[in-house]
């Protein structure tokens, strides 16, 4: 096997993995703080992708610019969803939470089907099919820009949690619910804020993802699963973990596809998930509970 082939594939895996990581980041934030199993995560990203498509079709808005309105919209939507629908479910048993979000996911997917039809849609930006050539290495432009944006967004989120007051308050709520209440933090409000942030994160990921993948209504569930795998492998509550998990999954799938048959590459991710759950359930970078 020629070495350029392996290098190219690994690089592509890393870049794609970073975008996956951004998507998982949103889930990690939500799950880590609010402790709600958001099984509609992939569907939310799908909606963000459609939003980007619509904005592009109507206003020729490049996805990188569309990030601002779409993320903003999702922030609001996420906050409302949490406050209105999900909040009463935090104390309910897991299967109830799960069913709630499955129902939400079903409505989302089929709502999209009703509005957009089953065709796959995408945005056609000029740099979509171009690549940089560095010797035998080919760097896909769209993928490169998208992963850069993913890193930037993750850094921004990280800074928010580390340096702002609201961020620290949210971390407090996550670490110690009772303690947070005792010191007078309005936990409900912070939960809503967190869900909003997580949703905005997913929205940014969606804007980036549309550059790599065409969107169709049925895309959601596979990404939900992928997000969960990444979050668990990377470590719950760890932002670096989400990115690391994303890259790990991206690269392992790429390598599995290269050395074993490509149609079995997803098996690898699930095997990895099982191993992590058994041997290191807190994930690679997560803290032990």
């Amino acid at each position, binding site marked *: 096997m020629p070495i350029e082939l392996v290098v190219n594939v690994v690089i592509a895996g890393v870049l794609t993995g970073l975008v996956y990581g951004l998507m998982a980041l949103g889930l990690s934030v939500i799950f880590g703080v609010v402790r709600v199993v958001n099984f509609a995560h992939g569907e939310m990203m799908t909606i963000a992708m459609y939003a980007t498509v619509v904005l592009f079709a109507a206003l020729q808005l490049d996805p990188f610019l569309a990030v601002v309105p779409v993320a903003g919209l999702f922030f609001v939507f996420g906050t409302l969803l949490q406050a209105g629908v999900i909040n009463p479910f935090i104390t309910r048993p897991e299967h109830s939470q799960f069913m709630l979000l499955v129902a939400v996911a079903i409505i989302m997917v089929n709502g999209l*089907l009703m509005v957009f039809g089953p065709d796959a849609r995408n945005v056609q930006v000029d740099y979509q099919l171009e690549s940089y050539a560095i010797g035998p290495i080919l760097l896909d432009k769209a993928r490169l820009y998208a992963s850069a944006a993913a890193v930037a967004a993750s850094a921004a989120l990280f800074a928010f949690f580390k340096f702002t007051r609201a961020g620290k308050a949210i971390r407090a709520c996550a670490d110690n619910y009772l303690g947070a209440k005792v010191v007078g933090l309005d936990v409900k409000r912070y939960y809503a804020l967190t869900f909003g942030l997580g949703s905005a994160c997913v929205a940014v990921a969606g804007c980036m993802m549309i550059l790599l993948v065409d969107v169709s209504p049925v895309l959601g569930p596979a990404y939900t699963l992928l997000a969960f795998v990444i979050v668990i492998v990377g470590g719950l509550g760890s932002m670096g973990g989400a990115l690391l998990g994303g890259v790990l999954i991206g690269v392992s799938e790429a390598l599995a596809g290269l050395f074993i048959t490509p149609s079995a590459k997803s098996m690898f991710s699930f095997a990895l998930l099982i191993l992590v759950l058994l041997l290191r359930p807190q994930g690679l970078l997560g803290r032990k509970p």
Partner: protein
Amino acid sequence: MKAQTGTSPVRRRVLKAAAASAALSTIGFPGIVRAQGTKLKVGVLLPRSGFQGLIGQSCQKGADLAPGVIKEMLGVDIELMNADTETNVDTARTRAERLIQEGAHVLVGPFDSGGAAAIAQVAEQRGVPFVINIAAAPQITEQGYKFVFRNFQTAPDIVRNGLALIGDLFQASNIAPRTAVFMHVNDTFGMAMAKGISAFMGRLTQLPFKIVDTIQYDPAARDLTVEVSKAKASNADFLLLVCRLNDAIILRREMVKQRWNPMGIVSPGSPGMYEEQYFKTLGKLSEYSISNVPWYNPRAELTKVVEKAFLKQNPKDKLVFNGLNVGFTFEAILVAADAFRRARSTDAKTLADAIRQTNITSKMMLGGPIKFNEKGQVEGIGSACVQNLNLTPTVVLPAAVATAKPVFPWPYYKA
């Protein structure tokens, strides 16, 4: 149900419909009795939603234009009973039962093999003839059914015809590529094709090319970077591809990104590259892709008639983008109507026997007459080499029915 005073007419209608349907579905009342005799009730089962919704809707267009055209051609009255299988075998089964319950004399459909197998069992059990429009799994007509008929090629047939056409393509273009990389989807269809290819490759002598690498991939994959990298690294002369629509689009784009330009993309028989979405999404990049598939005869009389009816019902659409789906669905209903005309009865067994005696020579799809063998399968359905030229799927082979000459290798190739 509590009656409300001053309910709006629409509300009342909805309530009544709900009550009626709930009552009917629970009691299982055998449907509203209609006047017998002069109308043939055709139950059309297609995936209008779910994963294959797009294709199902395309097939539906063929069904919708059928009653009008057939009335003119054969003077036979057809009533369509449409049902959505939702790309789900459970639904296919119960919908089939439902249609039979509501008086369908014959069933037509359902595009995918899983659904076809489920409906075939119901049809056989209830003794109602079932004419399959499109489904390639060979096992369906190997079960010894007496009421199941298929007017479509099985996967081995598709492969055989597809490979033969590749030989013709090379001859017509005066070029002999030595190697090919074979990429195929890892689903029912793709695996059947892969098996067929390895079986046939040994036998045919006009195909001097060797398959240097086989890459199977997941049809639901969103990212085909690895697959295309592998294919490019094989340095094969051309790409032999069995795909579906979405992955074909992703593949073509990835080829551009990775700057891989073999002599061309040739499919020995799969959907995807001739579908409208491929053109709409890829634009100029869709040019020159080749698919060897069962197709309609562009010069046949019946094709022109169907095309006229199609354009009347779908003024913004083009037959050429729906040809396969519309053509076979239409022909399936034609078979039913033709049998009805000869049998002069809607009795299921009589109809089935009449279908078995079918011999339709004036048809739309390529190949010999529609005649069912003892397994209920039509032999001799032809394929065409369809190349994307000027953003339209164009028949380039066989020369007798072609409307243009093939372009191979494609202009992007530099020797």
